[in-house]
């Protein structure tokens, strides 16, 4: 990557971050909604700690990382919506008159979503600790948790960008939210896979990459340094990020060629 490409990315990233941070409607739900669900689920499902072999002392510890995943999901929506809005308003058409390349636009556009994901991760962590959660992997584990959460946000952001670039419609990106939510529900988000009784559900959860992302993040909170869970999480997040980036780049190139 040459200096000129980095400069191009910097310009778009600067715009993306400033535009995102100026919209409380994008930031507040990303932070509030996952915390609201955490509060409800941590209390409503606290009795599950009494199930034999449940891996945590409290459901709060078990469910804390779900907020990071949901933050990543909101990042996908933010990234896709921003890109689609730029297409709708004609900003992308104007960018085509400049020497900017599609990958630079894409990386720069993700900066706003990543910024929100980073802020949200810090808030989730702080609220979780204040509510009594315990990070088994210690301070280093908490730092890695934030890093992995950013990687997850990048992965989902790439998926959001594919939809944004393909459809060019912010409304269509918003409609994608339920689709991604389905993958969340069909994972080991609410219970560990070995405690899921329905065989068909356990099979789906085992094939669902979201399970490995959740389990990797969760291992830092409830287990400590679990190498297997962490490498699975890392590989899954990188694979989704690469696929998302390639897919979004291709869609954006097609979109720019069309216009």
């Amino acid at each position, binding site marked *: 990557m040459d200096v000129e490409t980095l400069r191009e990315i910097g310009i778009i990233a600067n715009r993306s971050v400033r535009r995102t941070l100026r919209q409380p409607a994008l930031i507040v739900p990303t932070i509030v909604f996952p915390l609201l669900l955490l509060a409800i689920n941590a*209390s409503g499902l606290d*009795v599950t700690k*009494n*199930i034999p072999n449940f891996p945590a002392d409290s459901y709060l510890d078990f469910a804390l990382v779900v907020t990071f995943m949901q933050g990543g999901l909101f990042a996908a929506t933010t990234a896709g919506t921003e890109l689609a809005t730029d297409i709708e308003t004609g900003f992308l058409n104007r960018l085509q008159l400049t020497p900017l390349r599609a990958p630079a636009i894409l990386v720069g556009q993700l900066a706003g979503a990543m910024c929100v994901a980073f802020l949200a991760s810090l808030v989730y962590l702080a609220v979780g600790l204040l509510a009594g959660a315990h990070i088994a992997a210690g301070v280093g584990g908490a730092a890695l948790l934030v890093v992995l959460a950013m990687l997850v946000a990048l992965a989902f952001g790439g998926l959001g960008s594919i939809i944004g670039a393909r459809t060019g419609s912010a409304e269509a990106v918003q409609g994608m939210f339920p689709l991604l939510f389905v993958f969340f*529900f069909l994972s080991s988000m*609410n219970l560990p896979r070995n405690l899921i*009784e329905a065989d068909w*559900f356990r099979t789906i*959860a085992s094939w669902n990459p979201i399970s490995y992302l959740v389990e990797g993040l969760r291992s830092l909170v409830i287990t400590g340094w679990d190498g297997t869970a962490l490498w699975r999480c890392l590989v899954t997040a990188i694979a989704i990020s690469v696929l998302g980036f390639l897919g979004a780049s291709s869609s954006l190139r097609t979109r720019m060629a069309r216009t």
Partner: protein
Amino acid sequence: MMGTLAVARAVARRSLIHAFTNPALLVPSIVFPLVFLVGFAGGLSAVQNVPGFDFNGGYTAFQFVFVFLQSAAFGGVFTGFGIAADFESGFARRMLLAAPHRSGMLLGYAAAGMVRWFLTATLVTVASLLAGMDVHGSGIELGGLVGVGLLVNIASTLFGAGVSFRTKTLQAGPLMQIPIFVGLFLAPVYVPLTLLTGWIHTVASYNPVTALITAGRGFLSGEPDKSLLAFACGLGLAALMAVYASRGLRRAERGL
């Protein structure tokens, strides 16, 4: 009265044609409850092994009632979205000018919301039965469950209508969704009320949705519980929301 019914019939017919011929509107209202059913009844079935969980009918039946009532509530929200969309497109304003009895509009939207919910409720019920749900309630008790669902659907439709008449924009979607979502989840969703502890137990004890869900589960398991309280809460909520929606309609009329 005939004029009101004529307006209601026209509004309901249009809303239903619009909803059933537009997959972007129809699919989410069907898919969401099914996803919740799969996620809760399938993914959390081990919760029935928690000491003290003694629901007669298994975890699928336990969660079915929540999803059934949730689909009723969100059916109302989706109808509210439709009303807001009618205002954004200008159609609702033209209806307000043309309708001889404007209260018929409210009646028509409520009727359309009910028909939409019946479709979703049927699909959720079939999916639950296919998943092996045990039904112990008698025909009358199951009728009671449907009655509770209808009251929830009417109350939430009127709430959505009230918000839409006031805001006249789809951007008010979260104002319709979030209170209903929070109200539903501050009830005994995953385990019976007796197994909840801490602040959620206190909140759920005072939440009227708890009575609706508890009664629904009682009807399905053949062990009715809090039935009268549930119908009182349902009727009370529907009456309250009817006042809210009627006032919203008057405010919309004044804005013409």
